[in-house]
């Protein structure tokens, strides 16, 4: 593998679901460039899909005429993804992740997105202010993140 090049890519796109897959593929490709294997790149893709979808559905209430900013940064230690918006913010303290055993017994759809993000990424944070964002990090040298090599 070539030496790792660190860097940042930022893209702004409308809050319409047709753009979600495009951003998901960008995240997956960035994970591959950062040295993660296919399994981890798939997890990054799904977490990104869920984070962007949450912004469209909840932060913007389904409106498709707003903007979302997506930033992906490759650092020597990690891959950092940021999904930023100007809609309704989400406070980490307000998040209640479902207990999957109970969830599966009740068989009620919905509410799985945040759980998936937490499971598939190493660190997840929600920042609010002038701009709100979901910040997701995957570490290159963490146990279980096979395929990510520190060059």
């Amino acid at each position, binding site marked *: 593998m070539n030496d790792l090049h660190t860097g940042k890519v930022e893209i702004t796109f409308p809050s319409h*679901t*047709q753009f*979600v*897959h495009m951003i*998901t593929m960008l995240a997956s490709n960035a994970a591959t460039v950062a040295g993660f294997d*296919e*399994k981890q790149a*798939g*997890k990054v*893709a*799904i977490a990104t*899909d*869920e984070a962007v*979808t949450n912004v*469209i*559905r909840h932060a913007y209430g389904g409106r498709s005429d707003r903007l979302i900013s997506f930033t992906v940064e490759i650092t020597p230690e990690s891959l950092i993804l940021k999904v930023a918006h100007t809609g309704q913010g989400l406070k980490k303290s307000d998040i209640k992740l479902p207990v*999957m*055993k109970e969830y*599966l017994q009740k*068989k*009620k*759809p*919905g*509410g*799985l*997105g945040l*759980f*998936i993000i937490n*499971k*598939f990424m190493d660190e997840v944070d929600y920042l609010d202010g002038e701009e709100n964002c979901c910040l997701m990090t995957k570490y290159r040298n963490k146990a279980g993140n096979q395929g990510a090599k520190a060059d």
Partner: protein
Amino acid sequence: MAELTIHAVEKESAKVLYPNGYINAHTVQDFEKSIQSILEEKAYKIVINCNELEYINSSGLGVLMGVVEEITENEGFLWLSNMNETVFNIFDTLGFTHLFNVYQTEEEALEAIK
């Protein structure tokens, strides 16, 4: 490639669905319509062959959760086969493999019906 196409074929008394593309917030309505149209035919034995399914997000899983009760009440089943690693990971991580039988291949799933 289209975002999502789904076709259904009847095999071994079951409906086998072939989704091609990805299932997320943008395509989930097409996925839901396909499942619902099968249930409207009162066909409750369903196998989803995921060979050409790139990924599924929580919206798609919500659709499966929403119909599983109706299917089991009608003595049917909803099985899945040919998952890629990404699709399997999401099922496995969420514990959905306890709700839905997962087979390596469509042939294995059809064999299990007999």
